[in-house]
């Protein structure tokens, strides 16, 4: 799968893999309504890694949930592979902001869930689970319950579960958010290596600009609530990237500064 590098995805721009148009989302909140997203447009291309940054409460999780069909859209459309989505789509995998692991199931059985839903045969399930466990670096912990795992390991289980569903688009909601810096760097590096190998389309929410620039091909900045896209920045750092090193390059620091200014002042025009 070496051919499916993100560069290949980016040069072959045609129809976007995922296209959000005029998305508006209101929550009913006791008596009144909260507008979480207002007229949001966003395109993600096949094989592209897009990071989404924005202030807390600006509707990042809401956007991912709307794309996964978990919350009702008030207006606008989400198009995946040229088809307008209604309800919960196939081929979209969501990694929840908290890991949403089943506490009463072992790591293996948590990873099994999408396979069981898809009706995969037992022997094949076992084979795939073993493969995924080693892919996310959890060898030897398959039989552990979530409470017996560290925060970082639980994220790896949640990641393996999304990988098990084998979606065409990964929606990741601050997947490494609550982890300490070191664990986070290690998981990011592992995830990046994994992704650079399979080259799936990723929409990655984070509040950490460094993480966004380190991982993504493009960084999308959202305004405070009601959330809209207020800036997009291409990240021209060559791949494969070494997570520990990229942040010391000049390109990284310049881009990081521009995104930070956009986030804080909302003044910088779109790149």
């Amino acid at each position, binding site marked *: 799968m070496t051919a499916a590098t993100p560069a290949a995805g980016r040069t072959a721009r045609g129809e976007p893999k995922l296209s959000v148009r005029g998305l508006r989302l209101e*929550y*009913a*909140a*006791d008596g009144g309504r909260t507008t979480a997203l207002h007229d949001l447009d966003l395109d993600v291309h096949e094989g592209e890694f897009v990071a989404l940054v924005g202030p807390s409460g600006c509707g990042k999780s809401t956007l991912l*949930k709307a794309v*996964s*069909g*978990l*919350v*009702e859209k008030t207006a606008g459309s989400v198009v995946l592979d040229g088809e307008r989505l209604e309800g*919960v789509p*196939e081929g*979209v*995998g*969501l990694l*929840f902001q*908290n890991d*949403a692991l*089943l*506490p*009463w*199931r072992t790591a293996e059985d948590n990873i099994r*869930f*999408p396979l*069981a*839903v898809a009706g995969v045969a037992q022997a094949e399930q076992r084979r795939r689970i073993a493969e995924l466990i080693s892919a996310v670096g959890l060898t030897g912990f398959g039989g552990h*319950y979530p*409470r*017996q795992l560290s925060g970082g390991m639980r994220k790896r289980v949640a990641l393996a579960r999304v990988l098990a*569903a084998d979606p065409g688009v990964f929606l990741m909601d601050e997947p490494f958010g609550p982890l300490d810096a070191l664990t986070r760097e290690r998981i990011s590096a592992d995830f990046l290596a994994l992704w650079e190998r399979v080259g799936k389309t990723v929409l990655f929410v984070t509040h950490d600009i460094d993480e966004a620039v380190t991982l993504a091909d493009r960084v999308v900045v959202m305004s405070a609530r009601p959330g809209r896209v207020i800036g997009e920045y291409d990240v021209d750092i060559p791949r494969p990237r070494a997570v520990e090193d990229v942040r010391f390059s000049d390109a990284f620091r310049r881009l990081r500064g521009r995104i930070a200014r956009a986030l804080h002042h909302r003044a910088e025009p779109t790149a």
Partner: protein
Amino acid sequence: MTSLRTPSERLATGGRELAAPDADMDDARTVPPGRRQGRGQGRGRGRYGRRHRVLLYAGRVAVGGLTLLLWQFASGRWVDPFFVSSPSDVAARLAALVRSGELWPHLLTTLAEFGAGLGIGTAGGIALGLAIAFSGLVGQWFHPYVMALYSLPRVALAPLFIVWFGIGLTSKVTMVATMVIFAVFYNVYEGIRSIDPDLLDMARAHRASFLRTLRWIVFPALTPWLLTALRLGVGLALIGAVIAELVGSSAGLGYYIKNSSNLLDITGVFAGLAVITAVAMTFDTLVGALSRYLLRYR
């Protein structure tokens, strides 16, 4: 049943808040349902050393033993034994009941009422809880009426059931099931409402069927609540069976107690109470063991 509600729909329905029932959680065997999800909290057993356990059980035995001794001593000295009998008399009566075989029909009758009623009540409570929790608006139409029945002192229904179903098994089983069903319903309903919405969303995002969601998420999440309900249910079921027997019956432990009391045979009353207590403690211990087994993932 419609599909599972999302958090936002859940907000919109705005169900009323109710405090969890006071289950008699007197020791570390059970935990309040829905809590203790976090890691690294004490896990009851194993936290204390051997010495602590020896002290715990020795103390318990001492409290029980001293109470019996005090009763034995007081009987005939401070209080007329006609009214309070004595532990030795009660023990002798129990031995006689076992030897003559008179105990078994009474015990079996009560156990049959208890078992059948508990089974029916539990199954009914689970079905009612799932139906009301997952049927959206329709469920909300029924909810206040079910809660009204829940707060009714249901022992007051015993005479009615005797009139309707006679003094045989049916009226007793109905009484027991009526006692149990609401406790189970309440725990199931509150248990479903307290399921982490992200877990239900996770299942929806994977396009899991309703049955799979029940199997993988709803029932496991309900397990601690059901165990609490079962523990309450054991007590309530015994109350229901005995009350119904007191009101009208021809066999059972309640019948034996009532009969003894009509004959002013206080030793017989206490012997009946002792057997009921033994039954309650046995089932309570069984539910405790079941809890530890089913909740070992904590």
